């Protein structure tokens, strides 16, 4: 570990903190339907879209209408993206010799990008045409992020409103999020990435002669425009197979910092938006504080573990002095230009958020580091999370926390002025249980059937971690891969698509149900029986609830994977 490494991490956390309030204020204006500085430019376009689609912006929806609109939109989106991938050979901008995508892979990819997961069972540069990348992957990165934020905003309205039968209009939230939030930031970010050397071209791959005289094909394309939304959306699906480890996606340490900020900026800002919309801003800072504690612990431990190197290699006589990479820490699978700190930070950000972009190979991290990356996803990615899903995941844990606190200390179960009754708790538990059910159930099946075992790249606990990571990542809509698992088979394409489907829709439906139930309630004034939810005690309690719920649910699986592998590495066994 170095002082520079810690400084890098500290600067990143400080910048996220600085961006949270201005971004939060802007989000509040956008979703409150207020005028923003972009209104003169975007307003006419927004109104034209409403007219063309026959949407009345003032007409609000009940939670069930909102959920049906959400489901209908995503069903059509999956079919549209599937058709695009299947027909890419016949469409413009297809590279010579690039076939259409197979049905199972096209379904997996369509579900993946529409659900904001971006799990990729394929290598982008050798599988998708430029049109598929731009009109398919990039467009759905925008829409899936905007729909996730829309759900979070609807959930916030549930807490903020009193005696309302409606929670907003899905089509309006989707449109305003795309036009006023995602597009402007991505335009600026794409130009900054281009300035740093990220390509943005429709030219075919370049062919170069190497110093040794052989020919090399260098893939390129409209990378910068996809890269910006890949990070901002919490989507994470790279143009290239190596994702943000590829020098054309993430060429410099400065772009690395920019990418990290893009991943966290909106998720963190939504906590401030929550505080502003319900009243006391402190409530938002409390949630961000919980996220910061969990994030800080994770990144510190990962950095320490990776900086110490692999003990099984260090014990080999002379290796530490002969191998400069091991003397710098566990550099296997990491880029020299980012180093240990830049890689550890990116990995923790990527899994704590729902983004899933990678600048190093998670498969090569030390076993306990891999366990933390898994843990970040297993707690529903509430540590900032994707734009939208991180906040509503955290609010679900708040509901559980105040309910448990009420049971333990005899306080009235209420949160930010809303009474938490049995209906809300049932919906919350439903939302929190479907993800582990999908993750652990499908992992168990994959571990005992031949098609599941056929994809493994490693034996023993590491192989188990590969399978567990795949289903955890997809059910949590993260999309990062552990590597080592060949998931491009009908078995994995279909079961992983199922995990993504359940992880997105079977969580969001009860979330919207809770929003509708809360919006219909009055606001209860604070009394002596009210548990303060903007104090340090509640922060500590909420951290405990998140860790314990995640730990109790997944500890047996973690024990079979990264924990047992850790002890085997200490004993000199490597996988």
């Amino acid at each position: 570990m170095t002082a520079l490494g810690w400084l890098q991490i500290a600067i990143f956390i400080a910048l996220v903190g600085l961006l949270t309030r201005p971004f939060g204020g802007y989000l509040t204006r956008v979703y409150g339907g207020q005028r923003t500085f972009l209104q003169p430019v975007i307003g006419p376009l927004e109104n034209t879209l409403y007219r063309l689609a026959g949407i009345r912006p003032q007409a609000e929806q009940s939670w069930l209408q909102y959920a049906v609109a959400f489901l209908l939109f995503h069903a059509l989106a999956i079919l549209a993206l599937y058709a695009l991938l299947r027909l890419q050979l016949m469409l413009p901008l297809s590279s010579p010799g690039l076939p259409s995508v197979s049905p199972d892979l096209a379904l997996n990819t369509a579900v993946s990008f529409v659900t904001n997961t971006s799990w990729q069972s394929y290598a982008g540069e050798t599988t998708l045409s430029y049109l598929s990348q731009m009109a398919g992957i990039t467009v759905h990165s925008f829409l899936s992020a905007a729909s996730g934020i829309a759900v979070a905003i609807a959930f916030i309205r549930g807490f903020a409103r009193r005696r309302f039968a409606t929670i907003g209009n899905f089509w309006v939230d989707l449109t305003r999020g795309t036009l006023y939030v995602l597009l402007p930031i991505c335009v600026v970010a794409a130009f900054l990435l281009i300035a740093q050397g990220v390509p943005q071209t429709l030219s075919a791959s370049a062919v170069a002669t190497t110093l040794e005289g052989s020919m090399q094909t260098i893939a390129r394309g409209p990378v910068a425009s996809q890269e910006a939304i890949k990070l901002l959306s919490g989507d994470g699906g790279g143009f290239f197979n190596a994702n943000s480890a590829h020098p054309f996606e993430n060429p410099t340490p400065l772009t690395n910092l920019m990418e990290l900020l893009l991943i966290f900026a909106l998720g963190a800002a939504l906590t401030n938006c929550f505080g502003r919309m319900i009243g006391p801003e402190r409530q938002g800072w409390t949630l961000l504080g919980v996220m910061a504690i969990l994030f800080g612990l994770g990144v510190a431990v990962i950095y320490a573990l990776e900086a110490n190197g692999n003990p099984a290699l260090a014990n080999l006589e002379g290796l530490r002095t002969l191998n400069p990479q091991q003397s710098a820490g566990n550099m296997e699978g990491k880029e020299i230009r980012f180093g240990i700190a830049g890689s550890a930070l990116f990995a923790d950000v990527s899994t704590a958020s729902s983004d899933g972009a990678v600048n190093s190979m998670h498969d090569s991290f030390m076993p306990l580091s891999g366990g933390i990356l898994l843990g970040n996803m297993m707690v529903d990615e509430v540590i900032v999370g994707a734009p939208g899903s991180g906040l509503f995941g955290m609010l679900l844990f708040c509901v559980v926390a105040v309910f448990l606190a009420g049971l333990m200390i005899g306080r009235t179960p209420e949160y930010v002025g809303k009474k938490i009754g049995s209906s809300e708790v049932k919906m919350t538990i439903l939302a929190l249980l479907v993800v582990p059910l999908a993750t652990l159930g499908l992992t168990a099946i994959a571990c005992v059937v031949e098609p599941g075992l056929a994809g493994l790249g490693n034996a023993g606990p590491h192989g188990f971690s590969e399978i567990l990571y795949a289903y955890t990542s997809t059910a949590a809509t993260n999309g990062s891969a552990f590597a080592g698992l060949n998931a491009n088979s009908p078995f994995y394409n279909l079961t992983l698509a199922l995990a993504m489907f359940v992880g997105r829709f079977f969580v969001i439906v009860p979330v919207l149900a809770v929003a509708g139930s809360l919006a219909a309630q009055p606001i209860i004034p604070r009394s002596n029986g009210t548990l303060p939810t903007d104090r340090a005690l509640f922060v500590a309690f909420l951290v405990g609830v998140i860790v314990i719920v995640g730990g109790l649910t997944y500890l047996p699986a973690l024990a079979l994977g990264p924990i047992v592998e850790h002890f085997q590495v200490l004993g000199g066994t490597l996988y």
Partner: protein
Amino acid sequence: MADVIVLALVVICFAVAAGYAAACDRLLTRPVGKDVSL
């Protein structure tokens, strides 16, 4: 043929999700008995 199966799978999955939403709605509107909280 594979495309037809995929189309059917997508329709079935979203039909299940819509049914799930309707079940959640019923669960929310069902009377839950006397409220004994403070």
